[in-house]
């Protein structure tokens, strides 16, 4: 009985720690973003979201007993190549012909180099010793979730972009071919991971997770679409239930005189 009580107390403590150091900070991220985007408390919202994100990222140290913190640890592991990717994309876009916020034309080259290096770092995280290690020097279990999902989704999206540019754009064949090459490159990286073992993961594991990544992507898209459809139905039903707006009363004599005086003033030019 005493042992059971101790186990229950320990379990409660670890759950409470996980709630305080991982789950509440995770909830703070969207709440902060809502405050920031809605304009109610722009700066405070950004600060709240940033604190939440940092706490989630360092949760593998603040609450090491929780398995969920592997997700936060993975986010921390990929933050550097992700920021490099964002910097590269920004430089490539704004180094070109944009009407506002144009950067020096060298930003396009530095941007493309940054994108290349960020993708290289991701590859090295799979095939070299940069692989994110979590508890007891073991591989982070979510790395093998992240990597195939990223490769599959980017291959698919680049292919869509290439076809969209070719079919909707005017004289965009060269740009479309570049995007198709990027799509084939990402597919090539996925194929290489299917054939060659990673530093701490085998190609068999990657092939297994490729199925799961495909299931994940389709499932997430279907789930998001269903939620948006439910939201649209709720809003549509509410708007339909509203009574038609009442007609406003006709203008009074004073109001008509005022409008006529204004119109005369603007049309007639008596004052000039």
């Amino acid at each position: 009985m005493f042992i059971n009580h101790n186990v229950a107390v320990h379990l409660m403590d670890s759950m409470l720690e996980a709630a305080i150091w991982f789950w509440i900070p995770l909830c703070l991220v969207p709440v902060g973003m809502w405050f920031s985007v809605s304009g109610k408390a722009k700066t405070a919202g950004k600060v709240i979201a940033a604190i939440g994100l940092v706490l989630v990222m360092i949760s593998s140290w603040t609450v090491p007993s929780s398995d969920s913190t592997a997700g936060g640890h993975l986010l921390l592991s990929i933050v550097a190549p992700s920021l490099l990717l964002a910097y590269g994309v920004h430089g490539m876009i704004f180094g070109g012909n944009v009407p506002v916020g144009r950067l020096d034309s060298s930003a396009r080259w530095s941007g493309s180099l940054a994108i290349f290096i960020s993708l290289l770092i991701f590859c090295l995280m799979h095939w070299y010793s940069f692989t994110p290690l979590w508890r007891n020097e073991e591989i982070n279990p979510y790395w093998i979730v992240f990597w195939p999902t990223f490769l599959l989704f980017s291959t698919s999206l680049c292919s869509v972009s290439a076809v969209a540019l070719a079919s909707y754009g005017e004289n965009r064949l060269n740009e479309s071919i570049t995007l198709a090459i990027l799509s084939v490159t990402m597919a090539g990286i996925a194929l290489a991971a299917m054939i060659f073992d990673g530093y701490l993961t085998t190609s068999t594991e990657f092939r297994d997770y490729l199925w799961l990544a495909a299931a994940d992507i389709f499932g997430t898209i279907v789930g998001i679409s269903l939620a948006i459809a439910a939201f649209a139905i709720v809003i549509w039903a509410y708007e339909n239930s509203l009574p038609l707006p009442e007609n406003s009363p006709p203008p009074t004599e004073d109001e008509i005189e005022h409008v006529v005086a204004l119109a005369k003033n603007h049309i007639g030019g008596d004052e000039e």
Partner: protein
Amino acid sequence: MKQSQSSWKLLILAALLPVLVLVAINVTGGWKNDFHPESFKRFGNAVLTSYVVMGIILIGNLFFYADSRHRPFAPFVGMMFALAVGILIAWALISNDDLLLEANSGLRAQMLSNVVHLLVSGTAMALASLLAIGVTFAMITGRERRVLFEEE
């Protein structure tokens, strides 16, 4: 209208084709990987989790952007009901025998694991979108500006 419809079909095909090619290679390659037995569970969990999380985000938007509409209560209740249905289905399917339970100890562990899984796969998809959409815009802005009118 017909051309627009065929373009949409082409775009959907372009999205599916690379995934299908990789999965086909996975199945027919020398290693002969069969359909992963956990794929259906992953698909089901991903559908339910993303539905619930997206529902919560939309309810948040409804709350934070409703000032101009005098905060109507009805859509809020409607979305709460839609969300409750999603949570109820998730609870029923995960608790029911071995239908959606993956390598987790129970209902709560599976639900929490689903949220973290969505966080990771969502980050992967967001980064992939950043890469693809960013490079697309970079290609569009990279071309020299065309001269539309020659000044006389």
